[in-house]
Structures are given as C-alpha cells and as structure tokens.
C-alpha cells in the first residue's frame, strides 16, 4: 500500500481528497495543513510519496520540497505538486524540481487517485 503525505491548507479540498485518495484510491494518507507540519510529520510517517499543494501560507509546496530534499534521506523522495494555476513558466520551474507530476486544481475526485497511480508508475523514468 502506497503511503502518501499530503499537504494542503484548504480544509474543503482535504475533505474531498480524503475520500478520493483513501476510499476510491485505497492509499494510506496522512494530512498536513502546511509546509512546517509536513517537515515535522515526515520522519514518523515515512511516506512513499509526497503530495504538495503549491500555494500554502508560510512555507509553500516548492519551498517545502526543497527543504526536504536537502536531507540526504529524502533527496529522491517522489513528489507530486497540486496547483490551481498551471502556467508554462511555472510548470518548467516545478519540473526542474524533479517531481512526478503537477496536478491541476480543480480536480475530479473520481479521477484523482488514477492520476496519482499513473504518475507513481512513471517514477522510474525520472530517475527515482
């Protein structure tokens, strides 16, 4: 079972993602409200995959990932960004951070876990 650590500040999105990821997708998920919580939770939870909202108060998704990747232990941890704005220049920026995918918001709760699973299956291609 794939363990996902998911950081999202919007409560409504977390609620619907909970159903999409756990009930429909069958993943094991731990939820964080921001970047700092993510940094604190990761050692204990030991996730296989990070799912990070790009825009969060305080430390945003990309900053969180950058901080984590500084630690040798999480240097290659697979990650996926979620964002409401996918503009080409931003997308490039994210892909340079070596993430599996950038998922657009709004997402379809029925399809979210499928998208994550196919991104997960691709992780070999990215050198993980």
């Amino acid at each position, binding site marked *: 079972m794939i363990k996902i650590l998911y950081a999202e500040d919007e409560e409504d999105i977390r609620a619907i993602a909970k159903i999409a990821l756990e*009930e429909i997708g069958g993943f094991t998920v731990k939820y964080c409200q921001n970047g700092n919580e993510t940094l604190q939770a990761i050692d204990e939870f030991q996730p296989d995959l990070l799912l990070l909202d790009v825009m969060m108060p305080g430390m945003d998704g990309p900053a969180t990932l950058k901080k984590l990747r500084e630690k040798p232990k999480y240097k290659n941890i697979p990650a996926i960004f979620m964002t409401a704005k996918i503009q080409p220049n931003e997308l490039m920026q994210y892909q340079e951070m070596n993430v599996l995918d950038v998922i657009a918001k*709004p997402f379809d709760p029925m399809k979210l876990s499928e998208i994550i699973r196919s991104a997960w299956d691709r992780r070999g291609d990215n050198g993980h």
Partner: protein
Amino acid sequence: MDTKTQGKLDALYVEYARKLPDRIKQLNEQWCHIAGQWTQEAMQDFHRAIHGLCGSSGTYGYHELSVSARVLEVYLKKIVEDKKITDEEILKITELMDEMTKIFFISSQSRSHPVVANQIKSMKQNKLIYIFQKDKKYSSELKKNLGSMGYDSIVFEDVLFFSEAIKKTLPGLIIVDSDYLDKNEMTILQQLHQQDIPVTLFCISSHGDLQTRLKAIRAGSAAFFLKSNELYYLTKAVDQVCASSVSEALRVLIVDDSHSLAEYYSLILQAAGMEVCYITNPLDVLEALNDFRPGLLLLDIYMPDCSGLELAAVLRQESSYAGIPIVFLSTEDDRFKQLAALNLGGDDFLTKPVLPQHLVAAVRSRAKRASVLSSYMTKDSLTGLLNHTNVLQHLEIELSRASRFDSTLCFMMIDIDHFKLVNDTYGHVTGDHVLRKLSEVLLTSLRKTDLAGRYGGEEFAVILPNTTAEAAVELCARIRVQFSQCVFKTEDGQDFSVSFSAGIAAYPDFSDTKNLIKSADRALYQAKHEGRNREKIFRG
C-alpha cells in the same frame, strides 16, 4: 465506487454548498475592509482566500464560480507583492468581486452542486402524479391514459386531502383543473414553488380565455391544456417532463478564435446541462458539424481567416445545415452590423460581455424554437406522428442499425377497417377524431425507441427495432384490442367503435426496406381478406 463512498461524497457536496454563501459574504467583507485600510498582509490573506475558493469551488462542481475566481486571482497575483495599492486597482478588484458574487448567485439558482442536480433528476423520474380535478369522467380517462404509460396517478377532489398529500409525498407532477382554482388552492400551489425541489404544475381548463390562462400562470403552471383537446397532447407533455430520456442534452458548437473565451462559454453552458464542443479555427467547422452534430451554433463574428458572418452564409447555402440555429457573439454593438448578421442567417445576436444567464437563456430559447419547427417539418399535422417520407427515412436508418448490430426489427402496417364508411356516415370531423385516437393509442402503447407514422390516409406504419416477429404480433394484438374498445361519438350523440387490420414483416426474414414494406403490405391484405380486425405476419 460503493454507495457508502458515494454517500460520503454527497454529504461533502451538501456541506460545501451550505457553507458557500457565507464564504462569499465573508470574502466581500474582507475586501471591503482592505479597500478601506490596505495592508500588504491583509492583501496576501485575501489573495490566498480567493485562490482557495478557485480551487475548491471547481472541485465541488461550481465551475462558473471557479472561472470567475480565477480571473480575480490572476489579477491579484500581479499586485499582491506591491508596496501600495492604487485607486484604480481597488476599483478593478471591486468590479471583479461584484462579478464573481453575481455569478455565484446566478449559478447557485440555476444549478448548484452535483448532488442537488441529481436530486432534481431523480425528481424528474418520479412517476407519481397528483390530479386535482372534480370532473370524474375526465379524471378517470386521464388516469387510465397515464396508467398505460406507466405513471401512478391519484385523483383529488377535496383541497384538504390534496394539501395533506402534498405535505406527505411530493409527486413528480401536479395536474390541476384551473376552473376549480380558488384562493386556498392558489396558496398551496404557490407555496410549492418555494420548496427546494420544485414540482412541475400543469393546468387544464374548459376555457381558453386570457383570464383563465393568466390564473394558471399565476399559480406557477408550466403548461396549459384545454379539456376539449385530445389527451394525447397532455400525456405527451407529461412524458416530456417526467421521462429522463426526453431531456436529452442540448448540443452546442462554439466557434471562437479566443481559447479562453471559448472555454469560458463552454463552462457556462455545460453548467446549464448542455453538451458543448468548441473549436478555435473557423475552418474546422464542417468537420466539427459532422462529428459533433450540434443542435445550435455559437459563432464569434470577428475571427481571422474567416469571419462568423461569412461562415453563417456558407452554412445557410448547405441544405443539411440550413436548419441549425446560429447565435452570433461579438463585442460589436453597432446596430447595422448586427442587422447584417441576422440578414446572413443568424438567429440571434449577443453583445460581449454576455452575462452567463443571458447566454444560457438565448441558447436555450433558440434551440427550443428550432426543434419545434423541425418537428413540424417531419410530422404529420393531424396526428403528430411521422409523415410518409420520414417513415421511410427512419425505416432505412433502423434497418441498417439492425444489420450492424445483428438484431431483429419488425415493420407493421395498420389500416383502419371500413374507414371510408366512417367518413361517409359520420362525417370527416369524426373521421379525423378516429385517426387521432389511433395515433394516441399507438403513441401511448409503444416504447420510446419505436417509431409510428401516418403512412397514408387511414394507413399507419410502425417501426419496432429490436423486436422479434412473435413479440410484434403480441404487441399488435394488444393495441388492436385497446383501439377497438374505444368508443366514439357522432355529432348527433350516437356511439360507435372501429377496428383495424395489420400486416407485419420482420428483419432478417426480409433484408431491405422495399421487400419489408411489400411483405407487410401483403400480410395486411391477407388480414383484410380473412375478415379484418386481426393481424397477420408475412413469412416469405
């Protein structure tokens, strides 16, 4: 997905919908505060809140709201890091906030989240009908007709029982005789409209004068029927309101060279339950017309390569596209250009920026009128059935479908026995009444996929896809018995009844239209020859 998960999702949707109005209100307050007393932190919070709304509203099915929140968010992002805010920026944000708020209120009225939409859909499949009517003869006839179409109806004569029943179980439809509409009844009916799930109301009356019709409208009636008219029209309308299959989505093709605008319009129309396809290159229009088969075209006027006006002119010259309604969209507000657009075959002209509800209303009304018009062209005016040409066309289509899917099909020819005698003895008015009655019986006893047409004077044709010869014979016998039990009245009050004979031929016994029709005709001849009031099947 199991029902438990669906239930949880539904609960979330409902919860979100419940909180949303407050959230919009808070955002407005938040913005008012910033406009009066700007700080960079407050601005960042506000930006984040709008960003959040954009993501969550889209995920929860409020697409129009999400689109307008996105527009605001993109603007905010540009200025959120600035050290100050200008009056101009405040004005612009206020404008965008107003627009977003307006869109929220409009879209939450016409349609909210998917669960509520589903509730409305299941209401449409509610097959319970309340009839409030004191004329026993009429109501029992109506009940019988509705029953044969699979509807349960309950007749009320007393307003107290009627209002109690409504409180207990909501029907899918209420049919009220407006001749008995008094203050009490009006109040009950008007209250119905304030409910979350509105109930459709039809009014019937023995008078067609304006006063009576106004009374019906004031009670919230969606349709009005004269009691002297054939029940067929009423039952058909009932089917349109209650049956799910009839509410087939309207298909709209958008041609606009701006990607973002085309997408914006698609979102609005999709949110109104339409199926939408858009292209940004006008030269792709013929392909899109063929593939997507739209019921309406939304055309931008100013496009590179080929203007919307030119495109309309081309389409109007092509007979197969001449019937498609065209609505022009443009920033042009020059009256002369608009008139030129209409002259070139446009049906309506919308000036950008278009309010979402105007767009939806214009598209809907144009498409509706076009479908009514096309039904006049394909239908026999007396009976409302398909006319001769269309019977042949449909037989061709159904036959090729049957051969493609390797299924069966039956073609049935029906001829009213001694119809000439009916006409000669009782007069043409009575004769027409008999013809209409037969079409009513046919329409109410056939499945939705079956097709009935008036083939000639007193001859009717029925196409039964996916039906074996045996099933067709059985169905035919049932219809025949039902029709022969109808009692007609002559102008001087005499009762009489009529029978019919029928011939049936089946595919794959006969594999082309010509042979199928010929064989059904022969079987019909045989049925007449053997003494009428019977059906025969022709086996090569």
